[in-house]
């Protein structure tokens, strides 16, 4: 019998659709929720000239940092690209090898949600009177000034979750949920790595965080690497 089945067997298959020049939304807040294995598969895949939307810009020489270091990213859209271990982005940015669009974190989350919800633009109080609103359209509503912000859509999203089923229903783990749900909504193809793939009907329908309608592909990665551990070991990708 034909069935809706979003499960793919390999990381390679999962990212094969990603094309040069694509906009890729990458989940995670620091290492929590960062889909390291999918990012490494994207490095192996080699798609270039990517615009990456992600809260941070990677740490050390693994995951998102390794993708940037491999010169596959022409532009980063993020809220906090600077950390003690964001050496790669800092270096590449100073050399002019990667462009940066800096977006306040809540505006970033809301622009992505808007992209997924069919809202092309919205007004927000965030960043009014700051340099980040300098060239943006303003509007006064009920005597308060707001900034117009536009939706962000992705061609692809790379997201990590705790458990998934063949319909693409997802649940997350603790604060690793962060940007995953809105990125799945906003991408044409959301590609997800799940610590566990479970039979349909296992996930409580009251507790599913991302309904399968927002997901294109699921691949099981039962022992995902921890970024902080890789950093301690001074690992680099490709290894």
């Amino acid at each position, binding site marked *: *019998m*034909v*069935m*809706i089945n979003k499960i793919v067997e390999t990381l390679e298959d999962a990212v094969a659709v990603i094309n040069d020049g694509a906009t890729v939304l990458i989940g995670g807040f620091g290492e929590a929720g960062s889909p390291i294995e999918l990012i490494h598969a994207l490095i192996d895949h080699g798609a270039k000239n990517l615009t990456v939307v992600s809260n941070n810009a990677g740490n050390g020489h693994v995951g998102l940092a390794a993708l940037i270091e491999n010169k596959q990213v022409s532009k980063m859209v993020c809220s906090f690209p600077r950390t003690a271990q964001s050496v790669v982005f800092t270096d590449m940015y100073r050399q002019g090898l990667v462009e940066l669009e800096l977006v306040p974190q809540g505006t970033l989350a809301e622009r992505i*949600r808007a*992209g*997924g*919800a*069919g*809202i092309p633009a919205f007004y927000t109080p965030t960043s009014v009177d700051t340099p980040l609103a300098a060239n943006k359209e303003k509007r006064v509503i009920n005597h308060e000034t707001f900034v117009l912000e536009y939706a962000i859509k992705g061609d692809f999203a790379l997201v990590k979750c705790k458990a998934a*089923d*063949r*319909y693409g*229903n997802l649940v997350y783990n603790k604060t690793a949920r962060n940007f995953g749900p809105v990125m799945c*909504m906003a991408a044409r193809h959301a590609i997800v790595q799940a610590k566990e793939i479970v039979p*349909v*009907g296992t*996930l409580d*329908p*009251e507790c*599913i965080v991302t*309904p*399968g*309608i*927002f997901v294109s592909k699921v691949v099981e990665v039962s022992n995902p690497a921890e970024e902080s551990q890789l950093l301690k070991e001074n690992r680099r990708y490709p290894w």
Partner: protein
Amino acid sequence: MVEIQNIKPWNRNEMAQKVAADIPDGSYVNLGIGIPELVASFVPEGREFMYHSENGLLGIGPPPQPGHEDPELINAGKKAVTAIPGAAYFHHADSFAMIRGKHIDVCVLGAFQVSQNGDLANWSTGVPGGIPAVGGAMDLVSGVKTIFVITQHTTKEGKPKIVKECSYPLTGKAVVDRIFTDLAVIDVNKRGLFVREMAPGVSFDYLQSKTEAKLEI
């Protein structure tokens, strides 16, 4: 005069079956209130659809056994339903994010009128003193990729429902992709209305005589 003696219009179930046959495997499908609800019974062999209810359910199952209705598990028409294994519940803003955000592949709606360029009128007859009610229809037509209309070809009084221009207030402009009636299946595209199929015994001339807008074949 047009011959009519051999005409066998499709009944509502046959209409619903034709709609179901045109829904691609794996589609996410929203079914409107009324005749569209019948479509759920006709998933073609070898296909799996996922039915969405705008009041917060993805994965509508078959109707419940009598006596097992749950007043807190209903569809958009406020009728008792069931949820399939793998279903998910969510709130109204998330549900309409699915609709407005173009995540639903197909929507099947009823109609008062459809115009030759695909305008749909299905929420108000504009009668003074009538209570206007729109529900989710305008969200659906603006957000769903493919809009199927299922309707009797004419009104109870025999007036055409497929018209040059809608006289009733619009639900959406140039939104309908295909019309399923008791007499025919008609594609709507930029060049006009194209008849794909006619009910047994229906001739093109007969169909045109029941249709205000110009049909092509």
